[in-house]
C-alpha cells in the first residue's frame, strides 16, 4: 500500500513537472490576436511614412530596424547586425551585419539596403519623420537639403559590413531602433504602392489589410531567429473603442487589450482578469508646463509653489485610479539617468503660500491653462487641481482645446500654461535637450527654459563617452530641473495591457506597451483562435 502511495506521488510529481514545462515551452502554431487601440484605422503600412504608435504595432511584426529595444534590459540592442565596433573618437561605428536576414520576397539583406533606406528617409521632398534620427549620420543633412545624393557618413565595406559616421557622440541604438528607420527592400518600394503590399524583414509576412478593420500576417519561415516566430498567424485588429474592446476581451475574441483607468480598476477587482495584467511605467511624463513669458511663471518660487500646492498623490489615486506613477522629475524611472533617491514635491499648501508671498504674490494671481479632454492628463485633472490652487490664492481658468491643437499652442507659445503628455525616453540626453537653452520652442522647449548650469551639464554629457559618467551628468541635470520646476510634475504613465491566459511571451515595453516583438509571443493550445 505504502509503495502504491509513493508511486502515485511520483507520478503526480512527474505529471506536474511535465505540465509546468509544457507551460514554459513555446508552442508552435496558433494565431496571435493583438489590438490596435489608438485610432479607427492605420495611417500607413510604409514605416518610413508614419511616426504613429498605432502603425508601429504592425510594423514590429512586418519590419525590422538596425536595432531593437531590449525590454528585459531596458536598452537598445543590435538586431540586423551581429556585432559593432566603435572608433576611438566615438563617432564611427562599423557594423558586421547579419548574413541570414531575408526580406519577405526571399532576397538577402545587405549593407546596400541600409544605405538605400536611410537615404530614402532623408529625401527632403518627402518629409519622412525618421529624418530626425538619420540626421545624426554625417552628410545626411546634405541629402535632405538636396545638396548630395548619397549620405557621406554611410560606407559599404562589403555586403555585410557597414561603416556609419555620426556627427555627434551619441548611442546610435536610440536613433535606429525606431520603426520609422526600418530597412526596406528598394525593389519593392520602387514598384510603387508599397504601403498596400509591405515587404520587410520582420518575423511575419504581410497577408491582408482591410483598411479600418485589421492586418493579417503569416509566419515568415526564413526569419533569422531560429525557431521563431512561434505562431502561424498574427492578426492586428483595430479597436479604438475601449468599451467595445472590453466586451471583445471578455468574450475571448482578442488576446490583448490596453486598459484605461476605469477598466484597470474593474480588471484588478476581477479574480480571473486580474491574473492577466501586464504593467509598465512608460516613457511618458504628464505635466503642466509653465510659460515664463507670463510674468508670475518667470519666478521659480511660483512654479515650485504650484508643485507644493497640489495633492498630486490623491489625484493619481482617485482620478487616475492608480493607473500612473507619481512623477518625481522629468525623466521617467525607466531612464538610466533617473535618480532613485529623489522624492516628489510633498503636498504642503503652507509652504506654497509662503513661496508665493516671497515671490510677491501674497494674494495669488490668475492664469489660463490650456487643456484637452484626456481623462488622465486633461480636463478632469484640471478640474481637480482648481480647488487646490484656489486655496493658495491662485485662480485657474481652464481653456479646453482639441488635443490636436494643444501641440500647436505649445509651439507658438500662445499659452500661459498647458497640460499634456510628453515622450520622455528612451534617450535621456535627447529628452533633456528639450530644456537646453538653444532648443527652440518649436522643437520641444515649450517652457523656454534657459539655465546656464543646465546647459553646461548637458554639454558635458554630450561630450562624455563613458556611459556611466554621462548618465551621472544627466541625473544632475534632471535633478536641477526638479529644483527649477519649469512644470508641475504630475505622473508617468502606467501602461496596462490585459492578456488572455493562453498567450505567453508578452514584453513590458516601456517605450510603448503595445509595441510587442511578436516573434517572442506564443499561444498555447487553450487559445480559441485556430
Amino acid at each position, binding site marked *: 500500500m505504502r509503495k502504491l502511495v509513493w508511486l502515485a506521488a511520483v507520478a503526480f510529481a512527474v505529471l506536474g513537472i511535465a505540465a509546468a514545462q509544457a507551460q514554459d515551452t513555446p508552442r508552435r502554431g496558433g494565431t496571435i490576436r493583438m489590438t490596435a487601440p489608438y485610432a479607427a484605422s492605420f495611417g500607413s503600412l510604409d514605416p518610413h511614412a508614419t511616426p504613429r504608435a498605432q502603425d508601429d504595432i504592425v510594423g514590429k511584426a512586418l519590419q525590422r530596424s538596425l536595432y531593437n529595444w531590449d525590454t528585459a534590459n531596458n536598452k537598445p540592442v543590435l538586431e540586423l547586425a551581429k556585432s559593432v565596433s566603435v572608433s576611438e573618437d566615438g563617432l564611427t561605428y562599423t557594423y558586421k551585419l547579419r548574413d541570414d536576414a531575408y526580406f519577405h520576397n526571399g532576397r538577402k539583406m545587405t549593407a546596400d539596403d541600409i544605405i538605400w533606406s536611410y537615404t530614402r528617409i532623408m529625401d527632403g521632398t518627402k*518629409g519622412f519623420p525618421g529624418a530626425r534620427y538619420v540626421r545624426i549620420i554625417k552628410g545626411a543633412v546634405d541629402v535632405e537639403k538636396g545638396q548630395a545624393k548619397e549620405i557621406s557618413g554611410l560606407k559599404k565595406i562589403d555586403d555585410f559590413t557597414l561603416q556609419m559616421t555620426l556627427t555627434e557622440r551619441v548611442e546610435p541604438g536610440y536613433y535606429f531602433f525606431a520603426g520609422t528607420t526600418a530597412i526596406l527592400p528598394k525593389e519593392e518600394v520602387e514598384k510603387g504602392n508599397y504601403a498596400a503590399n509591405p515587404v520587410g524583414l520582420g518575423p511575419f509576412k504581410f497577408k491582408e489589410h482591410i483598411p479600418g478593420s485589421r492586418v493579417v500576417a503569416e509566419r515568415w519561415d526564413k526569419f533569422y531567429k531560429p525557431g521563431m516566430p512561434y505562431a502561424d498567424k498574427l492578426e492586428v*485588429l483595430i479597436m479604438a473603442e475601449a468599451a467595445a474592446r472590453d466586451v471583445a476581451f471578455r468574450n475571448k475574441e482578442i488576446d490583448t487589450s490596453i486598459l484605461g483607468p476605469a477598466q484597470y480598476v474593474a480588471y484588478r477587482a476581477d479574480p480571473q482578469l486580474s491574473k492577466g495584467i501586464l504593467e509598465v511605467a512608460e516613457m511618458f511624463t504628464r505635466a503642466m508646463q509653465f510659460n515664463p513669458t507670463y510674468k508670475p511663471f518667470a519666478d521659480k518660487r511660483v512654479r515650485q509653489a504650484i508643485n507644493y500646492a497640489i495633492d498630486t498623490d490623491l489625484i493619481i489615486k482617485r482620478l487616475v485610479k492608480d493607473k500612473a506613477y507619481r512623477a518625481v522629475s522629468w525623466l521617467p524611472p525607466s531612464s538610466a539617468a533617473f535618480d532613485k533617491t529623489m522624492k516628489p514635491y510633498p503636498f504642503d499648501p503652507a509652504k506654497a503660500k509662503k513661496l508665493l508671498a516671497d515671490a510677491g504674490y501674497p494674494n495669488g494671481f490668475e492664469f489660463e491653462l490650456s487643456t484637452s479632454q484626456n481623462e488622465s492628463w486633461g480636463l478632469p485633472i484640471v478640474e481637480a487641481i482648481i480647488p487646490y490652487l484656489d486655496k493658495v490664492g491662485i485662480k485657474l481658468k481652464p481653456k479646453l482645446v482639441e488635443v490636436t491643437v494643444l501641440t500647436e499652442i505649445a509651439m507658438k507659445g500662445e499659452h500661459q500654461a498647458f497640460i499634456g*503628455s510628453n515622450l520622455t525616453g528612451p534617450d535621456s540626453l535627447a529628452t533633456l535637450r528639450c530644456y537646453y537653452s538653444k532648443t527652440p520652442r518649436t522643437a520641444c522647449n515649450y517652457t523656454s527654459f534657459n539655465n546656464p548650469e543646465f546647459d553646461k551639464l548637458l554639454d558635458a554629457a554630450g561630450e562624455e563617452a563613458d556611459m556611466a559618467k554621462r548618465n551621472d551628468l544627466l541625473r544632475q541635470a534632471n535633478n536641477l530641473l526638479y529644483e527649477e520646476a519649469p512644470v508641475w510634475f504630475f505622473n508617468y504613465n502606467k501602461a496596462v495591457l490585459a492578456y488572455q491566459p493562453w498567450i505567453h511571451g508578452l514584453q513590458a515595453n516601456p517605450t510603448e506597451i503595445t509595441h510587442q516583438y511578436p516573434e517572442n509571443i506564443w499561444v498555447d493550445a487553450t487559445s480559441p483562435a485556430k
Partner: protein
Amino acid sequence: MLPVLARRVANIIPTLAAVVALVFLLFSVLPGSFVSAMNEDGRSNIDPAVMERMRKEMGLDDPVTTRFAKYVTRIAVGDLGTSFRTREPVTKLIAARIWPSLKLVFAAMCFAIIVGVPLGFLAALRPGSTIDTAAMVGAISGLSLSQFWLGLMLMYLFALQLKWLPSFGYGDGGLRHLILPAVALGVGPMALLARTTRAAVLDVLNADFVRTARSKGMTETRVVEWHVLRNALVLVITTIGLQFGSLMGAAVVVEKLFAWPGVGSLLVDSVFQRDIPTVQGCILLIVTFFLVINTLIDLAYVSIDPRIRYG
C-alpha cells in the same frame, strides 16, 4: 421622367459646389493641422524640420486662395487629392470603404423598413390597442437610445452572454458580423418609420376617399391594400429616403464601436488627424449619396402617385 431626372441632377451640382466650398472653408479656419496632429497622442514624435518639410510637401503653407483653386481644379477632374496620412489617393481610400459602408447602411435600412413599417401599420389599424401602445413605446425608446449605448448592450447580450454573434469586426464581411452593427444603426430609423407610418396611415384612414370606398362596400382588406397603403406610402417613402440618405454619415459612431471599416470611421479618424483631403472626400461622398438617394425618392413619388408632377 427624363426631364425630371435632368432637373434633379442639375440641382445636385450647385449643392455639391456649395458643400465643397463650405468644407474647404471650415477646415481652413479650424485650428490645428495634420502636422501638429501627428503629436496629438503624445506618443509620436516629429521634429520641427520634418514638420516644415511636411507642411511644404502638403501645400499647407500656401495661401488659402491658392489651395482652394488647386482643390477645385482637382475636383473638377475627379481627383480628390492625396491623403496626408497615408500618402495614397483619397479615391483609393474611399473606394476601400464604400462597400462595407453600403452593406451596413442597406442592412440597417432593411431592418428599419422590415420592422418599422409593419409595426407602424399595425399600430395605426388598431389605435389605442396594446399593439399600438407597445409599438409606440418601442418607437420612442428607439429614437431616444444612443447608438453607442445600444451597440454596447447588443454586444453584451448577443456576443458576451448568448455567444450567438461576434462582438466586433468585419470578419469575412458576412452576415454574422453585420447583424449587430446593422441593428444598432437601424433602430433609430426603424422607430422613426414606425411613428411616421402610423401617423400617415391614420391620416389616410380618416380621409374622405377611404370612407367612400368603405361605403361602396369594399372589404377592409381591399380598402387598406388599394387606398390606404398606396396613399400613406408617399410620406413613408419620404422618411425612408431621408433616413437612408443620412445613414452613411450617421454610421460614424456604430462603425467606430464595432470596428466596422466604413466611410464613417475613416471620416472621424481623418477629422481628428486633420487629414483634410480625406475629410473633404468623405463628406463629398456622404453628401452625394444623400442627394442621389433623395433624387431617386423624388422619382419614386411620380411612379407611386401620378398626381405628383414636377413643374
